[in-house]
């Protein structure tokens, strides 16, 4: 490596330049940056969490029309936050170096892990709670139930959750923390949003994968595909299970 101040050639693992003494370590945050980034990420997360608490716990609200309102409000808020912090987030919204091979590889990983997770959840639900949970029932009264199920369970979350968590929250945390910490924190808080302690056990690893891919490929879009394929597989399996097609 080369010292940025005096241009001396240095061994790669140097922490200080042996010629001019400059620090070579990147220290990420200034005081203002830290508070600002935490505020933005915290505010977005807080609003998101509030909406999730409302939709989950207020009695009588667990119906399609309220889910739709919830989705719309959530989407607007996410896009608004993204717009306001566009400078920080813009690089992760591009998709440079699109690779079909990678797309295939990530899609396969998504589908396989979805099948595994669904199997395990099914086991858990049956053994511990003695019940089955199906998404389809929410949509059965609509004009195009399977289409709407895909839109609301696979498409919308893949877009908006990736935008909010791998996009906004990770960009903000990246201003003040290292990659590893950012990936873990965003995965953990993302898992919390689902308000189900057992789901945390598989969502945390899944979100770590999404975060890792976002860092490695410098874009949220592979994650969007992974998330979509994961949720879509769940829908397809359900359609199969209920013998709807």
């Amino acid at each position, binding site marked *: 490596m080369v010292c940025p101040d005096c241009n001396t050639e*240095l*061994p790669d693992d*140097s*922490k*200080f*330049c*042996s*010629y*001019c*003494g400059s*620090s070579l*370590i*990147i*220290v990420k*945050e200034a005081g203002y940056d*830290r508070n600002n980034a935490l505020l933005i990420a915290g505010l977005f*997360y807080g609003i998101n*969490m509030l909406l999730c*608490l409302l939709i989950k*716990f207020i009695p009588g609200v667990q119906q399609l029309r309220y889910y739709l309102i919830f989705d719309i409000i959530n989407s607007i808020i996410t896009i608004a936050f993204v717009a306001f912090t566009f400078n920080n987030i813009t690089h992760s919204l591009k998709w440079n170096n699109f690779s079909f091979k990678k797309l295939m590889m990530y899609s396969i990983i998504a589908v396989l892990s979805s099948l595994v997770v669904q199997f395990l959840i099914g086991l858990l639900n049956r053994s*511990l*709670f003695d019940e089955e949970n199906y998404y389809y029932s929410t949509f059965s009264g609509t004009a195009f139930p399977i289409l709407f199920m895909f839109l609301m369970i696979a498409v919308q979350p893949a877009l908006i959750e990736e935008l909010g968590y791998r996009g906004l929250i990770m960009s903000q945390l990246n201003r*003040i*923390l290292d990659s*590893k*910490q950012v990936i*873990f*924190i965003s995965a*953990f*808080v993302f898992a*919390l949003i689902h*308000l189900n*302690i*057992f789901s*945390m*056990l598989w969502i945390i690893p899944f979100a770590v994968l999404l975060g890792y891919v976002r860092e490695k490929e410098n874009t949220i879009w592979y994650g969007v595909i992974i998330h979509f394929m994961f949720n879509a597989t769940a829908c397809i399996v359900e359609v199969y299970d209920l013998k709807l097609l």
Partner: protein
Amino acid sequence: MEYQSAEVTISELHCEACSAIIKEEDFFCQNCGFPIKAPAEERDAFINDRNFHAFELTEMQKKIKNASTSIFVISGFTAAAAVVIYFMTPETQNPLALMIINLVVAGIFLGLGFWCKKQPVAAIISALCLYIILWLIAIIDNPLNIVSGIIIKILIIGYLIKGLKSAFEAQKIKKAHNL
């Protein structure tokens, strides 16, 4: 008979400030930035400064330790509550499931407590989020839960936030001086 033994000693130079290996031609230590060839006052000032930052770090480690202890306390309380809940919940409300849920929560806090040694910032932020959300859910379930155990809750959250601030500072100091 004459024995000729050639001893070639390669003397390794070590940095006064951090003991890392340095080379004859270096002006600064590549590990800690110590000004090797500066006059004595500058070298002494650097070492004093470095010692001061090391001392600051130990103070911060204490606060971080308080935070990780709080996390372990939460874990212990939750595990104990899990057992109590199992025996006190009527059969119709699925006491086994409730107990397992609490045990999983206790397990997550336990993991975060250990994780705090390695990545205090990530662990404390996660613990804070989980703790506050559990509190919110308890309040939604029964608004009286706002006040139940509120002193302990505020204490714990206080320790966690202090620990988080210290963790951020410690991270910065470690990085800037490679301590």
